[in-house]
């Protein structure tokens, strides 16, 4: 029975937060393993092979960032950082090391569960190749046809420029995962990040939003994380 439940490793040194998260995860049908430090977390990760990791950064033995690095050496298991550090630099550091998402404390349990679902789905997309019928990626109304390099919203084709298409396709391939400016710029232009290239990306994103008809404040396909990056939603 419990075999088809997702197994989640939760790492935090606060007992109360561990208990809160495992209760919430339990009632939502996940199986949880908890650790209070990096050392134990590494051991449990190797023995339990969790489907996802929820990770606090301020751990007593080592910084959580080193744990992300350690996980990424051997596996693509999604890692969601759950931290009280809320500066852009902290987020970028964790994401560039390979974390999938970053949730700041204090957090709402609904929000956390949504991010977990998104990350688990993203993990699947990555390991099974593309979802749906191989060449196409469907996110709600948005359809990306890779061989034809075209994008549809409902039945309407959206006319993107080369660059805009590349950005949308890259975000869609990584749907559910927060992508930093530097990772997008590297994938689309193949260059390293400077203020000029970030501006270029932002201008292209503004055009993409306009063409998709996205209005500020509406829950839509692309989420802004100011000064950090963008995330394509894979859940509605």
């Amino acid at each position, binding site marked *: 029975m419990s075999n088809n439940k997702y197994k989640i490793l939760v790492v935090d040194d606060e007992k109360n937060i561990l208990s809160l998260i495992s209760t919430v995860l339990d009632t939502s049908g996940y199986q949880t393993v908890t650790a209070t430090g990096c050392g134990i977390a590494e051991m449990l990760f190797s023995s339990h092979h969790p489907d996802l990791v929820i990770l606090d950064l301020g751990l007593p033995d080592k910084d959580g960032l080193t744990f992300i690095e350690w996980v990424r050496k051997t596996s693509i298991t999604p890692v969601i950082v759950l931290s009280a550090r809320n500066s*852009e630099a902290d987020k970028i550091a964790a994401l560039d090391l390979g974390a999938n998402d970053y949730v700041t404390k*204090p957090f*709402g349990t609904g*929000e956390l569960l949504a991010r977990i679902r998104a990350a688990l789905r993203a993990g699947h997309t990555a390991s099974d190749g593309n979802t749906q019928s191989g060449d196409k990626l469907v996110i709600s109304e948005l359809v990306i046809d890779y061989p034809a390099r075209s994008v549809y919203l409902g039945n309407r084709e959206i006319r993107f420029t080369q660059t805009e298409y590349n950005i949308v396709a890259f975000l869609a391939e990584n749907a559910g995962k927060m992508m930093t400016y530097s990772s997008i710029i590297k994938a689309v232009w193949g260059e390293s990040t400077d203020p000029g290239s970030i501006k270029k990306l932002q*201008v292209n994103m503004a055009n993409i939003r306009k063409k998709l008809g996205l*209005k*500020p404040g509406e829950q839509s396909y692309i989420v802004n994380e*100011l*000064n950090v990056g963008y995330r394509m939603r894979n859940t509605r």
Partner: protein
Amino acid sequence: MNKRSKYLSDALFSLLVMSLAFALNMLIQYIFSIQTLIPMIFVFGVFLISFRTESYLFGFSASLLSVLLVNFAFSFPYFRFDLFTPELLLSAVIMLIISFLTCMVTKKLSVTEKEKAENEKEQLRANLLRAVSHDLRTPLTTIYGSCSAMIENFSSLTEPQLLKLLSEVKQDSEWLMRMVENLLSITKVGTGNVSINKFDVVLEELIDSVILNFNKRYPEQKVSVEIPDEFISIGMDALLIEQVIINLLENAVFHAKGMTKLILRVRVSGKDAVFEVIDNGCGIPKDKLSSIFGGVLSGAETPADGRRNNMGIGLTVCSAIIAAHGGQVFARNSQNGGAVFGFTLKIAEITDEQ
């Protein structure tokens, strides 16, 4: 960098004053051929220099220089140092003492001025702290009390009772969360000379993020957004500015009685972006209008058990954050009822989209 240029301008100023004093003395000596005025004019120069400049160095070197100049140029034998005539030596020493003392006293005066400003800041902080710690007690009482009650009487409480207590705990912890966010921001900008981290942020993305976060807290409150079509980017600390806008929206939710429409509008005025939160509620009472952004820090008018001081703190935080960005906050009543709260920020770049 800044310190260096201040140093340079201080040095220039000192040099200017000393040359002026010297020229004036030459003139006086030429016209009246008397010397009684000369040391006084130099001492006055030293006074000016000590008052204006930051380092003791300038005042002291100016006083030393004046003594040398008096000895050199304005006492017999002219244009020659003579440190061996006892009379001249004595007058030089006396003048040195007087000008040193002038320098020191003046310095002390300007330091006290600085201390006063520091004290005022300290006073503000103390008032804020007092208001806040008072305000923290009420929600903590609810949270602590409700939780203990639920644990002790768990089996005897009915489900609706439990839900009611729990939702109150949730409300009050949300309130605490906002308060803590505000306090963190105040400590980030309120300490004066701390420079904030500015990055160029795209206006549309900022507003998107603000509205999503606001809707998470107030799902039932609709906000209409009116922003320009151009690509506008503004240098700011995005987390702080986001908080300012959310505080202003929240302020409308709590205080604009009878509000049916809440608008977040951004317009371009010259080189500024003007952010406005417009409601059609009850407006701002006239007597509060002038002090509304500094409400808490004035330390007055805190009712002993007033609950909604958070909003006063919220607006104070707004003005501190905007001031740290070099912008302006404003509040006014609109002609057809309701209030407008807003602020301005410098635009970094604006381009018409193709």
